[in-house]
C-alpha cells in the first residue's frame, strides 16, 4: 500500500478542517428509520463509516434525481434563458462504499464520450471521494464478480481500510494525493503492510458470492438477443424500476419542462428507467419494447453487453441493491447465473 494511516481523532479533525475551510462533507448518515443516506455532515460523529450500503447510491450526488438544466422567461414572442452554474464548490465524500465509487467511475465513460456532460463533470471535479473498504457484504453482494471487491479502489481518490484505531489510507488518484498533502499533518506513518494485507483478506473471508465470473456472460450476451433464456425471465418483475433508482450505475434520464405559470418555467433532467413500458412508448402508441421480458433484457444487456462493448467495462458494480430493493423477488445474480449456465451449455442445448 502506497499510503499512510489516519486515526479516528485525526479524521475527525480533518473533517473539522474541511468544513471550516468551506468544503462540504458528505457521508453516510443514519436516518431515523435506521437506514443510511449520503448526507452532508458537520462533524465526523454524524457519519457512519463502513456501515454498509446507503439507501441510494453515490450516483445521486453527481446525477441528482432531478436537476434544473436551465430556466426560461417569456415576454411576448421572446424567450430569455437563465443558465444554471456548471461549476460547483468543493466537496468531499467520506465513507463512500467501494461499489458506489466504482459506479461513479463507470459512469464517467458515458457522461464524457463525445459530448461532455458539464453538470456531471462539474460535480465530479469539485468532489473528492474517500471510500472506506466494506466489511458489511451480504449474500446479495457480487462486487468480486464485477472485478472490484470490497476494498476496490475504482472511483475512489483515497481508500480507507479500517484498522483498530483509524484507517490505513491508500492514495488512488492525484486528487487524493492533493488532499493528503494539503492536510499532511492529519495523517500518520504508513501502515504495517502485513496487517493491511491480513485485513484486506479478512474482508473476503467466508464470502461466497452468488454468481461466479461474469466474463462468459458478457461474451455470450452479444449474440443471443433472441435466446429462449429471455422467455418469461421477467414474469415476477413489476416493471417498477426500484432497481434502477437504487442502482449505482443506472443513469437513464428524462428531460421535462415544468412551467411555473404562463411565462416562466424550468427544463429539468430527471431519473428515468428502462423498466417501465412508458420509457420507449411512442406517441403513436407503438412500443418497441412492449413486454417486460424485453425491458428486463435491455437492463441486463445494457449492463453486461452494450456498455462493455462500447466502453470496455461493466455497468454493474455488484452492489446487490437491485435484488434487495425488488418487491417481486427478481434477483440479478440469479439471472446472471442462469445466463452463465445457458452460455456453458452445448450450443443449441437447453440450459
Amino acid at each position: 500500500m502506497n499510503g499512510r494511516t489516519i486515526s479516528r481523532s485525526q479524521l475527525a479533525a480533518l473533517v473539522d478542517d474541511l468544513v471550516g475551510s468551506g468544503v462540504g462533507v458528505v457521508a453516510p448518515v443514519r436516518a431515523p428509520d435506521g437506514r443510511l443516506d449520503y448526507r452532508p455532515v458537520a462533524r465526523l460523529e454524524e457519519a457512519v463509516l463502513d456501515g454498509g450500503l446507503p439507501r441510494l447510491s453515490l450516483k445521486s450526488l453527481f446525477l441528482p434525481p432531478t436537476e434544473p438544466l436551465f430556466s426560461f422567461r417569456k415576454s411576448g414572442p421572446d424567450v430569455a434563458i437563465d443558465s444554471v452554474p456548471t461549476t460547483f464548490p468543493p466537496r468531499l465524500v467520506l465513507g463512500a462504499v467501494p461499489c458506489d465509487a466504482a459506479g461513479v467511475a463507470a459512469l464517467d465513460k458515458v457522461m464524457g464520450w463525445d459530448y461532455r456532460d458539464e453538470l456531471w463533470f462539474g460535480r465530479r471535479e469539485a468532489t473528492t471521494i474517500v471510500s472506506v473498504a466494506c466489511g458489511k457484504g451480504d449474500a446479495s453482494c457480487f462486487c468480486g464478480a464485477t472485478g472490484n471487491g470490497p476494498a476496490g479502489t475504482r472511483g475512489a481518490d483515497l481508500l480507507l481500510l479500517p484498522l483498530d484505531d483509524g484507517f490505513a489510507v491508500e492514495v488512488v488518484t492525484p486528487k487524493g494525493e492533493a488532499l493528503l498533502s494539503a492536510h499532511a499533518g492529519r495523517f500518520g506513518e504508513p501502515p504495517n503492510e502485513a496487517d493491511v494485507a491480513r485485513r484486506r483478506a479478512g474482508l473476503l473471508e467466508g464470502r461466497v458470492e452468488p454468481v461466479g465470473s461474469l466474463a462468459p456472460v458478457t461474451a455470450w450476451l452479444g449474440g443471443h438477443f433472441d435466446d429462449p433464456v429471455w422467455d418469461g425471465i421477467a414474469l415476477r418483475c413489476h416493471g417498477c424500476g426500484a432497481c434502477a433508482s437504487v442502482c449505482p450505475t443506472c443513469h437513464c434520464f428524462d428531460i421535462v419542462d415544468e412551467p411555473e405559470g404562463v411565462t416562466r418555467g424550468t427544463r429539468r433532467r430527471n431519473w428515468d428507467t428502462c423498466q417501465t413500458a412508458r420509457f420507449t412508448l411512442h406517441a403513436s402508441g407503438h412500443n418497441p419494447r412492449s413486454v417486460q421480458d424485453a425491458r428486463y433484457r435491455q437492463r441486463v444487456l445494457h449492463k453486461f453487453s452494450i456498455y462493455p462493448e462500447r466502453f470496455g467495462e461493466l455497468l454493474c458494480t455488484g452492489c446487490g441493491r437491485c435484488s434487495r430493493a425488488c418487491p417481486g423477488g427478481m434477483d440479478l445474480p440469479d439471472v446472471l447465473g442462469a445466463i452463465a449456465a445457458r452460455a456453458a451449455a452445448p450450443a443449441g442445448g437447453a440450459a
Partner: protein
Amino acid sequence: MKELRDLATKLLAEGTVNVVLGWEEGPRGVRPAFATDAAAAGRLVFDPRCTQNLVPYLSPRRTQVKKLGKAAVVVKGCDARAVAGLVRETQLAREDVVVIGVRCGGVIADPASPEPLSPATVADRCPGCNSREPKLADHTVGELPAAPPGESRRDVRIADLEARTADERWAFWQDELGRCVRCHACREACPMCFCERCVADKTQPQWVDSSPHPRGAFAWNVTRALHLAGRCVDCGECERACPVDIPLGLLNLKLARVASERFGYTATDDPAVPSPVGSFQKDDAQEFIL
C-alpha cells in the same frame, strides 16, 4: 404445505387452470412462482415469509402472465381483498380465477430476512388481523396458525402523528416524502393501481410534476393516496416496494380510517360490498364545509 401442493397439482392436472401463482424458495427467501406443471407445483411453499401479495400479477395489464392461461392464485386473507377489489372494479371476472386461500398466522415484514416470525419481525398490518382465513377462496388450505405475534405499531404511529401540531406533521412528511425519487414502485406493486396510464404519467396536462423534487413528490404521494382512498386493500405492498422506505402505509391507513369512520366502509374480500368511491349518503358528514 402438502395440501397446497397437492391441490395445485390437481388443478393443473385436471386442466382447471394452466398456472398456479404461489410462492417458492428463491435465492433470497421465497419469491413468486408461476407453476405450470406438477414439478413446479410440488415446489410451492407457504410460510410467514410469503409476505408478497401475488394479486398484482392478475391485473389485465400483465399481458405476459395472462398469456400463461387461466390462473389459480394463492392468497392470504389480506391478498383476497385485492382479488375482491379487482372483481369489484371489473378488472377480473371472478370465474376467471381460482382462488386458493391459505390460513395465515402473520407474515414477516422483510421476506428476505432469515429471522423467524416474531413481534420484532412481523409485518405491521398483521397484529390484530381479522381476515386470517380468506372468505373469497374457492379452496382453503392449511390449519389456522396462532394469531400473529406482537402489537400493531402503526396505530401508535398514527396516533402519535395526529397528536402533533400541523407544523410538526408537515415537517415530518416533508422529510419522509423528500426521499421520494418518483420511481413509482409503490404504484407498480399495488394490486389496485391497474390504470392503463397513470394520471402521473399524463402529460397533457401534467397535473403531477414528474420530477422527484419535493413539489413533485408531494403531488404524487397525495394523488396516490387519494386514488386508493376507499380502495386500498391494506396488503402493504407499496411500502414494501418503496426503495427509500417512505411509510406509505400510514397514509393508506389514515384514509382507510376516514373511509370507515365517515362512510362505514372497511376493506373486505366481498366483491359485492360497494366501495365508498362512486357511492354516497345524503347525510355524509360535512362538518368541514361552511
